[in-house]
């Protein structure tokens, strides 16, 4: 939360002018579309007669009803408590998206049939590839951040070259380099280790920057206090600086974790059967890849919601010391 002011704004959605504006806007938007031929038009049949012939009157009536429903909904939600408001809005948005997906006319039985395999093979691979990569990347990131902030020429040069190189090159290229290039030097690496190596190196580079900015955000007074007590560098870092930097570091790191989940799909180019790969292949044969893509997306979303929940728990833990 922002540091909240002690003055509460009046509930915006209960102000008459706001309600009126909202109504007008929604009405205008829906008037602009011709929705008479949709299922909503069907629903309105008792009022507007045969939808396809209702013309302007039909459009007007539909837009009016939608706007009314929308405004009523908003005003009613405005009365609820904060948590309930959030839950309702989430729920409604979710419904809207489901309705949107329904326009793709997906075959549900097909999804149900493939889901177990998608999860047992795809999700498991995706999860373990990204979990291992995340751990390695975080370790690299701490080292990299300290090196990038150090006054040691070697450490700085190597770390900055590393971040520049592995952020600059497309991840796909890194996968190729490791998968096809290392054998030329005499190591033949398997597809999964190559993928994990590429992901760790790439995300390590991104996270180096995040950790660096987090460490830099800590007030120098903390360094001074820590030093004045005789703490060494590593102790200061571990116990004083990093714990304070975490609240700043966690949200962008969460970003990286979530996008790592999806970038782990790049290892499929070298033949690893992770989630996205399966989604594309399972549907291809029967031409139902949209079904599979949407299922895969839903699974990714679930996974990232899990990560988000974990993240918000950690954030709450570290925010303890800030509440007064």
């Amino acid at each position, binding site marked *: 939360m922002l540091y909240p002011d002690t003055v509460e704004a009046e509930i915006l959605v209960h102000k008459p002018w706001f309600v009126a504006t909202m109504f007008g806007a929604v009405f205008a938007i829906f008037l602009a579309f011709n929705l008479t031929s949709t299922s909503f038009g069907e629903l309105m049949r008792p009022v507007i007669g045969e939808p396809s012939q209702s013309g302007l009157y039909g459009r007007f009536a539909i837009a009016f009803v939608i706007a009314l429903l929308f405004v009523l909904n908003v005003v009613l939600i405005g009365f609820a408590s904060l948590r309930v408001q959030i839950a309702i809005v989430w729920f409604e948005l979710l419904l809207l998206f489901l309705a949107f997906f329904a326009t793709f006319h997906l075959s549900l039985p097909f999804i149900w049939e493939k889901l177990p395999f998608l999860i047992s093979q795809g999700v498991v691979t995706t999860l373990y590839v990204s979990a291992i990569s995340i751990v390695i990347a975080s370790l690299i990131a701490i080292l990299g951040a300290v090196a990038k902030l150090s006054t040691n020429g070697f450490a700085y040069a190597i770390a900055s070259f590393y971040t520049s190189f592995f952020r600059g090159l497309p991840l796909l290229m890194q996968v190729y380099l490791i998968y*096809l290039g290392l*054998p030329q030097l005499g190591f*033949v690496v398997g597809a999964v280790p190559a993928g994990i190596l590429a992901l760790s190196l790439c995300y390590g580079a991104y996270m180096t920057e995040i950790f660096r900015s987090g460490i830099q955000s800590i007030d120098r007074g903390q360094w001074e206090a820590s030093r004045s007590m005789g703490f060494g560098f590593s102790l200061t870092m571990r116990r004083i600086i990093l714990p304070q930097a975490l609240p700043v570091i966690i949200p962008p790191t969460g970003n990286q974790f979530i996008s790592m989940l999806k970038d782990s799909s790049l290892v*499929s*180019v*070298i*033949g690893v*059967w992770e989630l996205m*790969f399966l989604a*594309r*292949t399972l549907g*291809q*044969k*029967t*031409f139902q*890849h*949209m079904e599979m*893509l949407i299922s895969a997306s839903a699974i990714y979303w679930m996974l990232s919601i899990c990560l988000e929940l974990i993240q918000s728990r950690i954030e709450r833990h570290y925010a303890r010391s800030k509440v007064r």
Partner: protein
Amino acid sequence: LDRVLAAGTLKVATDANWAPQSFVNSNNELDGFDVDVAKEIGKRIGVKVEFVTPGWDIITAGNWVGRWDMHVGSMTPTKKRAEIFDFPAVYYYTPAAVAVHKDSKATSLSDLDGKVVGATTTSTFEAYAKKDLTLDAAGAPPFEYKLNPKEVHSYESSTTAFDDLRIGDGVRLDAVVSSQPSIVDAVKAGYPIKQIGEPVFYEPLAVAIEHGDPEFSAKIADAVKAMKADGTLGTLSKKWYGVDYSIVR
């Protein structure tokens, strides 16, 4: 059709990643067998041809909403796909073949029993290697499974599979199933690989358009039939493959 004629341009979707059917040539323009076929069809309908290159998934999702009118991109006309598309005309057949590293001791397909084979994912080649191929399109020639691999590796594209084969015989792969033309091209590009045995099956490939325009469909069918009849198609195939693939041998 009305839209195509009114605009005077035929928008053709194709894949730019599929030499020698369609690719970007040294003048940085689209070129290849599919491209020439599409141009020829356009000429015969009497409109200019314009190309767009969306991804395969996007094309096969259907619902083109007028972004393009026709797909000439070596699509295999399966029954499932026929639910979404009309296939006015099959315009050629590609042979699929097996390639091995040039140091390989295998001399016939049966030598590859129990070996590791690579193929492009979700392709008919992969299906073949897994003994899971159905060619239910009209006019598909019959075939039999001659390959008994221990393991099938799937790749995003055939080039990655070739790259893996190139590293050495049996290092990651023992053989790759792919289209004969692409094997020939790879050999030309200096890959240390060779084809063994005869082509294992032939795959019919067709022009695709959306349902609901029988007139347009008929026009395309006529054009392709005429191209076949007067040998244009054969010439084009010879130009690109050195062989006439417009008929099953």
